[in-house]
């Protein structure tokens, strides 16, 4: 389904541009109001750049390229025509109106710097004084590291100005938010609730390969000598690595883990074996800075933000999953933490933060 909060992220929906499976030849839309049916065909969009492969003339050519990564013998690299982009960088619009085909209002009360699909800004805010409500639009947490300061500034501006205007309610719009930088929702949460400490704990499957990896990297990290300038630098760079456990907090004790051995459990749940529960040490500035500068990791970000605003009894907020009437299963936020993109290089040698996504 298309949606303005997805349009401003520049994506294509599964229905209309990102479908994986063959849906059929013909497509017919029929209408409740009796309008003549709209008859059309399903399309397929070829994702590869034709010039980059030359003709893939047979099923075998296709297999060799798409499955094995081998170019056909006939391929001539001198025939590659690089794609051309018309025009230079465009000026940043100061609202989401154009990109959302008119859905977003034209004059946001708050707008992050460099807003736009082709630009780095994401956050906008809207004050409706007649209903004493502010709306904070957070379409994504997937912010380029260099823009995170502007992102949090926009949120702070929103909170400060909404308070100054005496608004009684805030709606945070997280529709189609796919996640992104884990620390952003922590920062945003603390901006709204400075006195509350969010609990974010996680654990992983405890099995041989994971524990070999974790022990090797954590032991290596612990062995780095901070009095040596290079090792000290490396130690800082690796502080937020997923396989370095000494910078994480043992949720049960509130203290840092001393080794992977302490962390790995195994603890039995639901017929499987898991590590102990870890938490981020948010007071660790080195950790935070490397975490942001490295590849962003989505965590249970939206879930985090919404769960931390429940129940009403603790901090006066409610979370609503659209639609508000029980029409059937509704889209809730998922609670999965990104640890999926392991590369073979992670197993070959200890990863640096930039490759440990």
């Amino acid at each position: 389904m298309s949606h303005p909060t997805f349009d401003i992220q520049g994506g294509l929906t599964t229905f209309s541009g990102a479908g994986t499976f063959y849906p059929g030849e013909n497509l017919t839309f029929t209408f409740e109001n009796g309008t003549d049916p709209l008859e059309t065909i399903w399309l397929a969009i070829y994702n590869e750049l034709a010039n980059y492969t030359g003709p893939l003339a047979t099923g075998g050519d296709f297999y060799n390229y798409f499955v094995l990564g081998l170019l056909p013998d006939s391929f001539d690299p001198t025939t590659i025509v690089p794609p051309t982009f018309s025009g230079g960088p465009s000026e940043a619009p100061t609202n989401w109106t154009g990109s959302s085909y008119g859905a977003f209002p034209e004059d946001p009360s708050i707008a992050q710097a460099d807003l736009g699909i082709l630009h780095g800004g994401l956050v906008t805010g809207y004050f409706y004084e007649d209903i004493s409500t502010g709306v904070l639009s957070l379409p994504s947490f997937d912010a380029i590291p260099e823009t995170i300061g502007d992102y949090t500034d926009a949120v702070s501006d929103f909170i400060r100005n909404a308070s100054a205007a005496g608004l009684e309610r805030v709606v945070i719009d997280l529709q189609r938010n796919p996640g992104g930088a884990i620390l952003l929702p922590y920062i945003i949460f603390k901006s709204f609730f400075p006195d509350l400490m969010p609990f974010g704990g996680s654990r992983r499957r405890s099995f041989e390969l994971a524990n070999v990896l974790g022990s090797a990297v954590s032991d290596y990290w612990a062995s780095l000598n901070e009095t040596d300038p290079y090792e000290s630098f490396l130690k800082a760079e690796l502080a937020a690595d997923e396989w370095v456990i000494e910078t994480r907090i043992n949720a049960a004790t509130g203290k840092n883990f001393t080794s992977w051995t302490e962390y790995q459990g195994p603890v039995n749940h639901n017929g499987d074996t898991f590590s102990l529960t870890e938490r981020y040490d948010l007071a660790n500035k080195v950790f935070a800075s490397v975490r942001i500068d490295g590849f962003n990791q989505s965590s249970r970000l939206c879930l985090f933000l919404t769960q931390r605003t429940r129940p009403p009894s603790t901090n006066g907020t409610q979370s609503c999953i659209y639609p508000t009437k029980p029409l059937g299963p509704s889209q809730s936020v998922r609670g999965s933490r990104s640890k999926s993109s392991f590369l073979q290089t992670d197993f070959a040698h200890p990863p640096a933060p930039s490759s440990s996504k």
Partner: protein
Amino acid sequence: MTLEEASTLVTQHRSFFDRRRFQFLDRFVLESTLKRALLILKGYSIFWASDAQKCLTSVPFNGAVASRFLKYWNETIQFQSTLAYLKNPPEGYQQPAVDVQAELARIQQNINEGSYANQYEFEADFELLTYALHDGHVTLTAGALSAFSFASPFEIASVSIDGKQPPRVYITGSYFNVANDLASSKEPA
């Protein structure tokens, strides 16, 4: 479809350009978006879905390669911490349970028995498994399936026409006509 229609289609989608931040998001959508847009301008990239399907089902299947891939994916999925919970979901989980290991064994059995007539059949079976985990961090964009993205030429949207009624499904953009009709038929206050 003419080049003009294709260009209009893409202009409507307006998803031409690359963004660094999509390094996190599903690269499949972004890369296909960018490359597709460029090729549409050359007129080479939009086809009948049924033609693409004829192409995909003509790609031969190789059991040895498939087995090697399955083994590699299985080693990787051992890190997925929800495996036991997908097999035995807690109360309130709204999707069907899936036993990933059992499904992999089933697919391997199909490979062994030569049940997959072509590469598309194998990859579709495999991709369905990855989707069955319902986890946005478990994605597979590879092989013959990555060559094409399927699309309706018209987008749909779920919209409440007045913000109070339950939402209904519209052709995206057409609900403006309905809303205008509704607004103009209101009795003056």
